[in-house]
């Protein structure tokens, strides 16, 4: 459908590329700043932003049909399910006052 007719200008790519390099430098530098528990969050926010830029523009998700976007979102959702429900065990051991459980 629209996918292969839509040719994106190299200028857009170059812009995205610059942003990606900037984000890499940012995440490296910010890791030296003591943000306490926030540092994981900051690192992940930067990584997710970087991923979104690559996916949306380099991988054309932004210009793709709804189904492709749904497939991507679904994949990420399932990753969250895996991580979240696994941590539901690991992070809650001892919550209900039962020793060792």
């Amino acid at each position: 459908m629209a996918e292969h007719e839509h040719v994106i200008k190299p200028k857009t790519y170059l812009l995205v590329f610059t942003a990606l390099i900037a984000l890499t430098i940012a995440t490296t530098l910010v890791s030296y700043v003591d943000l306490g528990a926030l540092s994981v969050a900051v690192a992940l926010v930067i990584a997710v932003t970087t991923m979104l830029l690559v996916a949306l523009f380099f991988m054309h998700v932004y210009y793709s049909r709804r189904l492709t976007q749904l497939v991507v979102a679904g994949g990420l959702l399932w990753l969250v399910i895996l991580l979240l429900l696994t941590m539901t065990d690991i992070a809650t051991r001892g919550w209900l006052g039962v020793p060792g459980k």
Partner: protein
Amino acid sequence: MITTTTEPRANYLTSDFGIKSWLLTTDHKRIGLLYLVTITLFFILGGLFATLIRLELLTPQGDLTSSETYNKFFTLHGVIMIFLFLIPSIPATMGNFLIPMMIGAKDLAFPRLNLLSWYLLVAGGAFTLYAMFAGGVDTGWTFYTPYSSTYSNTYVMATAVGIFIAGFSSILTGLNFIVTIHRMRAPGLTWFRLPLFVWAHYATSLIQVLGTPVLAVTIVLLAIERGFHIGIFDPALGGDPVLFQHMFWFYSHPAVYIMILPSMGVVSELVSVFARKRVFGYEFVAFSSVAIAVYGFLVWGHHMFVSSQSVYAGLVFSFLSFFVAIPSAIKVFNWTATLYKGSISYRTPMLYAFGFIGLFTIGGLTGLFLATLGVDVHVHDTYFVVAHFHYIMVGGALMAYLGGLHYWWPKMFGRMYPEGWAKLSALVVFLGFNLTFFPQFLLGYLGMPRRYHAYPEEFQVLHVLSTAGASVLAVGYVIPLIYFIWSLRYGAVAPANPWHATGLEWKTPSPPPTENFEFTPVVTHEAYDYEALAQEEEQEGVRVG
């Protein structure tokens, strides 16, 4: 149709001959048959191990084989039946054969990938067979660490590689189906005109694509641990063996739905055709397949209530598990309601469908016992669990597999099976199955643990009943094997649509030509529209009956 009777056209079976035309084929129908032969062989092998297990359990003393050997028997029974028979069973044979025809396409979206999938299954099977002949494997199909990673000195690696490769066969089949169902439907065939068989396979494919890779990476981590002695799950290095269980069940619980969802699709077709009624609550049955596929990923922790998983996680997983019961219940009620005011025929496939609904109901309801925290503590890892999942997988999936095979046999080979023998074997299978597995519920609640080579005497009576049932069941499986082969040559020639069914697959000759349809069909009405079919048949002058 009338014009073609004078000179029979070449069909997919007669279009080409020779072994090469089979091994290099990209025709989905031929690949379906390749799978049929392959998994039948694996079923016979897995059944052989089941027989040996049941013979050993005839007496309380472990007197037939040593415990090492017994442990290898049940491990190989599980590995072969699950990864090499049940996972591919309906999707790879009937799904492969029928989905393109049901949606009016010439083939799957990626025919060469489809052939590759078959080769991957064969390769995975070859590794497993190598492990078997080299000395076997004794970890159970669950491969729990640290037993599998450190303590077992059997052929764990070869089996793991086999499962890994067979897993990719499953992933690629699922991928192929999803793309095909999205992109290859005939004009006019909207989502809500699709046969429920296709809906069920779409849901199944979602699980294959989303779940199987996690099993793959779990196997990789296990192999790294076993091969290089570096521990991801090794408690000696601060690893958590319970993490292995989480990752394993993230796939292996939804995998149960890989096995049962396609059977639900088959049963929806059978119930509709042999009651000549549109499936009651079509949309609910369709969506319940997708709901089962999605919920199926949220409940794996119910395999781990006594594993030292946190109590809180236990509560969460138990709560979520009960929600899977709802779409399953919806299906059972809707199938039953479909029978109401129908025109019910007792042909063999319908007998299997009746059997499926009954046994799946029992299997599903006993699943509630296992989701209930307080009761699961007692019955976990006992024969209650063994009985429950055999009701789902043998009473459910295998019954539907046989029902579907009888139903589409004329389409696949252009021959009818012998009805009398088929009815007899359906009855024998049903009785044998219940005699085999019902006593195991009682055994389980009594406290008989699974995977026991020898057991206390008080369990013997029930074990003897179970073994007796297994021998009946074996007879029930041998009869169809014989008459199916017999029918290939001597069976009555099948017409294009022997059941007066509505699906697109019945609008093409039996067996179908290589390209399935002469012209791409245009779909103008919903699935299971028997009135429209009657009108068409009248116009074409087909005499009903």
